[in-house]
């Protein structure tokens, strides 16, 4: 039986010819995003924004043609690591962008260091990511940035007792810890800290538990894509009738899903670094162009991470006029500041993390659609997660 003929492995392997030699005029950007699986809406938003940026600013910078190589890691860290290695070794990319969830960024960090490839985190929000490699920069946000701000704001605005509900993974723990610190420092009290399973969560029992503790508000952090289910079940359980407010980072009132949440979500206060309703001219053209390019899909805070990552790359290449040496690019990028659709942002030279405005905003209805309307601004917020250390 063992004597079967077998398609010789060598022939099959011959199929995968070595990657095309990189012509000197081309700068390749490796995009590692969750295009399938639970976080696929993050991948779709980020990639759309990156392509929009290239459409608006052309695909040549400092004489070099920009080329995106998109890989789907399905938000699974093993895949991200292997895809990153392939992009570095086989496709010889000069940048890595993306990382829908924290584990995928952490898995690639050692690679970025060893291969000296600037790696821009456009989505993941846990503080420690930028500490894991000197070649990592971030254009998305960190959870503590918005959690601390909402914590301080809540303590000052008559919210005494809070129950925290967070998804059971690194960003969830980050936001819960920093919110609790800021909120208790401001005189507030956290009655109970509830952790919700990351995959296929049903919030009903947890909301019921939170309601029984009868807090003034619930601090909630769930990954983008799950906010709507949370809010709908929050309303369905009648917590809004019981006078309990929702507060938290803007992930829960994600622009991508806000319209589907129904009228009762109006009045929810969150803190975040981007709202599709941000009143700047740059943001208006960005939102229009994004909607036109993606048949009416409204850009959310994840898309802005991708858009600004492209801007960072274009500016860096201009500064090094096309030189793709890792260290030169890093030096060019550190400390860079510019106006993004979300508002003025900059890259902190020491931590390479993003410094940006955090806005307090309330959900309101504007010409038939729900938006997070900003009403208070905290300028140039560094990542509190690292600032204390």
């Amino acid at each position, binding site marked *: 039986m063992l004597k079967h003929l077998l398609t010789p492995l060598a022939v099959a392997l011959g199929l995968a010819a070595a990657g095309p030699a990189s012509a000197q005029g081309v700068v390749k950007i490796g995009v590692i995003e969750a295009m*399938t699986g639970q976080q696929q809406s993050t991948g779709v938003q980020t990639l759309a924004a990156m392509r929009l940026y290239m459409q608006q600013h052309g695909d040549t910078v400092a004489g070099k043609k920009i080329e995106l190589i998109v*890989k789907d890691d399905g938000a699974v860290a093993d895949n991200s690591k292997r895809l990153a290695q392939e992009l570095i070794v086989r496709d010889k990319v000069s940048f890595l962008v993306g990382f829908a969830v924290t584990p995928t960024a952490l898995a690639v960090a050692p690679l970025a260091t060893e291969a000296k490839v600037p790696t821009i985190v456009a989505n993941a929000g846990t503080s420690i990511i930028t500490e894991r490699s000197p070649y990592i920069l971030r254009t998305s946000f960190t959870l503590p940035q918005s959690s601390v701000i909402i914590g301080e704001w809540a303590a000052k605005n008559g919210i005494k007792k809070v129950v925290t509900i967070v998804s059971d993974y690194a960003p969830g723990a980050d936001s819960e810890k920093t919110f609790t610190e800021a909120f208790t420092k401001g005189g507030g009290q956290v009655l109970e800290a509830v952790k919700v399973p990351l995959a296929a969560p049903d919030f009903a029992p947890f909301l019921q538990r939170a309601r029984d503790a009868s807090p003034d508000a619930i601090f909630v952090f769930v990954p983008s894509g799950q906010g709507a289910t949370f809010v709908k079940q929050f309303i369905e359980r009648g917590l809004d009738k019981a006078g309990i407010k929702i507060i938290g980072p803007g992930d829960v009132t994600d622009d991508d899903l806000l319209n589907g949440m129904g009228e009762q979500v109006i009045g929810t206060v969150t803190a975040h670094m981007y709202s599709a309703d941000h009143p700047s001219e740059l943001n208006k053209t960005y939102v229009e162009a994004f909607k036109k390019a993606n048949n009416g899909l409204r850009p959310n805070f994840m898309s802005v991470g991708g858009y600004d990552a492209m801007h960072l790359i274009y500016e860096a290449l201009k500064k090094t006029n096309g030189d793709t040496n890792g260290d030169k690019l890093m030096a060019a990028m550190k400390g860079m500041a510019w106006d993004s659709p979300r508002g003025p942002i900059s890259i902190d030279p020491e931590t390479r993390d993003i410094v940006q405005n955090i806005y307090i905003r309330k959900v309101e209805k504007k010409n038939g659609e729900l938006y997070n309307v900003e009403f208070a601004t905290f300028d140039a917020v560094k990542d509190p997660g690292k600032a204390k250390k």
Partner: protein
Amino acid sequence: MRGPDVSTSAALASAISAQFSARARWSPLEMVFWLGAFSTIWLLPEQHLILTEIVIWALLALSLDLILGYAGIISLGHAAFFGVGAYTAGLLAKHALVGEPVLALLVSGLAGGAFGFATSFLVLRGTDLTRLMVTLGVALLVREIANRAAWLTGGADGLQGIDMQPVLGLFRFDLYGHTAYIYSLTVLFVLFLLARRVVGSPFGLSLLAIKGNPLRASAVGIGQTWRLVGIYTLAAAYAGIAGGLLTQTTAFTSLESLSFDRSADALLVLIIGGTGHLYGGLIGAVVFRFAQDWISTATPQYWQFWIGLFLVLIVLVGRDRIGGWFAPLRRLADRISGWRPWRPGPAAAPDEGGRP
């Protein structure tokens, strides 16, 4: 080719051992297969990353073949043992309990095997359907435990902070995956040899008998329970080693190593290569991973459609018919490999009366 006259029992005895040894002998095709595999170390240096992953898929599919192809046990939760091995290797490295990778790999194999032994009794009784559901349930349970025990396994974030010592203290895991590939390919080859011996041995033969006809197997004195427990434990150990390899070559492991997708893909890889001849998992891994890699670069968002279509077509066309397409190639191989079934000459002219 007329063999010597059959009637002399010595000639018959030699014909019998010729048949047995022919079964165990290495056919040239197998040699070409492994030469091809090892030659990729020098021929395709840039592909070592995906090749390492193929080797790991091949080992997992091989272990699934041991129970599906040779004992007829269908499992949709083989990732449970894969994950146990992956986390064991990860924890050993992270807490520097067993630094040396090869030793850690053995421990992961033992862990996988022990877990396999413990759950093997669940799988002995019951029809295909109950086995399908039990294995699925066990894998889900292990995944939930790993998710809950975040203090140990890092939960949804995966096991952070693994740094791998060099293999045998000599070969450091480099960025480009060369060490990783040579290491994994050698492990696969060694385990393949072991599996080939076990499957070819009287024990392996009795497994085929149990799978072929359980009623007759027990009617000739084969006790089924311990045989099935034995092969299930061995297969679990193999899957544990495959998991350990993944952790060691990527210095990371997460809940994905216990996921339903991992078990379903292992089944898919095995089916592509065909069950019951040990090479199924290996060929399937090459075809599946390259196809997946090629399709997912073409359409990052919708590659699952093509994999799904591929699966539906395989079933509709019929796996055995696809096996049939390779039949002419198999006959060609038999001729090349020089083993011709030893045809005894016609018995003494058949006379009328039956001689007792």
